[in-house]
């Protein structure tokens, strides 16, 4: 069992719909009317649960459009009455805190760096671990599995000191490399599963037809790895965009903060929190991830499950 084994088939709530309808309940035993009542009941429950999970996201968006005097007024506003963009204006352009645009720039740079580097390195690494037999292969596989379990929280002091010794505090490159080390074990492991899922015989067939080995790999196996590359890319993107703790200790200067660290500067001990601006800032940080997530969600859960169910 692995986090995302070979050729994981995307299994999601939406795509598998219908396959389970009516399972386990021979239709003849229940009267249709009771069935309808029950299914309406389940539907209402689903609606409530869905609303409960989505509520904080709704509340963030709603508050972000609410004028400050209504936010701190005596009335509760469940809907953004008198909607305004002023909170966004405050979050983005008011310079008394650390500025938004440099933080956005830093986050984009770190994310891009981690995304590209992790995919290239993990791809090369997974090739080595799947298409070659060599001494130390199993040891390497075991060590990336174990490394994955070492909590970053334990390593923060020595990672900080390492970056400090290199005089690379507050640099995108240092944070990027730290993140890269954090995501590599998982990305190598995942991609390795996907490469394993493509039978080497396919490549050999292409070679019999006259392809060279690299060309056979490139033409036959690589296109089949697209889902794996997407899965690892998503993981790297989310890590680099969302990570907070390492960014907190490595990117301390206002102009080198990433977005999560920037978000925290809204709360200052001496002043009341401007919740409207803070929610606007949260929307700015969260929306790219949420949109991205909804687009690629099909590949997120299948991995853990495929192959794990045994008869």
């Amino acid at each position, binding site marked *: *069992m*692995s986090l995302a084994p070979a050729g994981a088939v995307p299994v999601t*709530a*939406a795509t*598998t*719909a219908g396959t389970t309808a009516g*399972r*386990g309940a021979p239709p003849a035993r229940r009267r249709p009317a009771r069935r309808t009542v029950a299914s309406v009941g*389940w*539907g209402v*429950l*689903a*609606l409530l649960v*869905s609303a409960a*999970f*989505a509520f*904080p996201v709704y*509340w*963030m968006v709603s508050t972000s459009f609410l004028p400050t005097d209504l936010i*701190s007024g005596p009335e*509760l506003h469940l809907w953004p009455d008198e909607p305004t963009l002023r909170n966004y204006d405050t979050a983005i352009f008011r310079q008394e805190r650390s500025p938004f645009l440099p933080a956005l720039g830093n986050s984009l740079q770190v994310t891009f760096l981690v995304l590209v580097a992790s995919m*290239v*390195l993990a791809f*090369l690494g997974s090739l*080595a671990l799947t298409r*070659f037999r*060599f001494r130390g292969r199993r040891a390497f596989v*075991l060590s990336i599995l*174990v490394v994955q*379990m*070492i*909590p970053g*929280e*334990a390593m*923060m*002091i020595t990672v900080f000191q*390492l970056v400090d010794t290199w005089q690379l505090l507050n640099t995108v490159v240092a944070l990027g490399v730290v993140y890269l*080390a954090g995501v590599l074990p998982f990305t190598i492991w995942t991609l390795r599963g996907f490469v*394993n899922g493509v039978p080497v015989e396919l490549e050999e067939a292409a070679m019999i037809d006259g392809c060279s*080995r690299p060309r056979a790999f490139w033409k036959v196996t690589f296109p089949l790895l697209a889902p794996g590359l997407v899965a690892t890319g998503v993981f790297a993107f989310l890590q680099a965009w969302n990570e*907070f*703790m390492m960014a907190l*200790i490595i990117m301390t200067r206002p102009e080198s903060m990433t977005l999560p660290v920037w*978000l*925290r500067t809204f709360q200052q001990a001496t002043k009341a*929190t401007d919740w409207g601006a803070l*929610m606007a800032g949260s929307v700015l940080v*969260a929306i790219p*991830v*949420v949109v*991205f*997530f*909804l687009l690629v*969600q099909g590949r*997120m859960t*299948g991995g*853990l*499950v495929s192959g*794990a*169910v045994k008869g």
Partner: protein
Amino acid sequence: MASTTLTPPGAAPAPRATRAITAARLLPWLLLAPSAAVLLVVTGYPLVRMLWLSVHEYERAQLLGVPAPFVGLDNYTATLTDPRFWTVTARSFAFMVVCVVLTIVVGTLVALLLMKLGRGMRLVLSVGLLLAWAMPPLAAMLVWGWIFDTQYGVVNHLLTSLTSTDWMGHSWLVSPLSFFAVATLVVVWGAIPFVAFTLYAGFTQVPGEVLEAAHLDGANARQRFVDVQVPYVRTIYVVLIVLSMIWDLKVFTQIFVLQGIGGVKSQTSTLGVYIYEMGMAQGHYGAASAIAVVFTLVMLTISAYYVRVTIREETP
């Protein structure tokens, strides 16, 4: 170049091929080299350094160049005899257990609900879950901070209008117990979607005939769940529980941010935050490293089963 790797391992190499074979031996290492280098420098070295720090006296002064004296296991004995360490550890474990149990139980219920639904409502529920799952932890934490805000939070508003008491101005974060109630809610809320989707995907792979047979044999819904569905997805449960334990034990962002909004640090720190406090904030690098080593060992112990299962299922 890579084509030479197809040479069967035991085949006697013709002299001409020797160089090619050496290249083929090196090639996998060449491909692994960049990853191995990054991991050695940014994970391996700090790990060794952490062990080194944990047996030396290392404070702010040593950061400025004062030599660090070797103190043997002093940092460890100091840590293990410090009641604060045990309080923090007990707190972290209690928090972890509550979060894991709630996550798995509610996650199972949501997964079963997904099974019950038709296509349309399943999509509705999936979107709600996905929104919660997708929220960046820090942004989610701040939103929850706003929801539970002392002065204008929606929870206090609603409680005031629903009950006869005036809740406005009630602080949820000052008392450690309600601080952790909020933290639990946030962590569980964020963790359930992954668990629910994974379990749902697992449940859909249980063959319908088996469930039907159980039904015909007179098994009720509860028996079908406990005796048929759960055994089928046992491995998934084990992995989900282990992963949840690890994630909830090392929780940092949520606790750290909630403390920033209004918690009492000394009464609410978990292990990750405690290491940050001791090391980064107070500069007791040696002592904090000793805690970090203990913490790492605990994590590795918990994940040992997961690693073993994974390796065993690994094709040779």
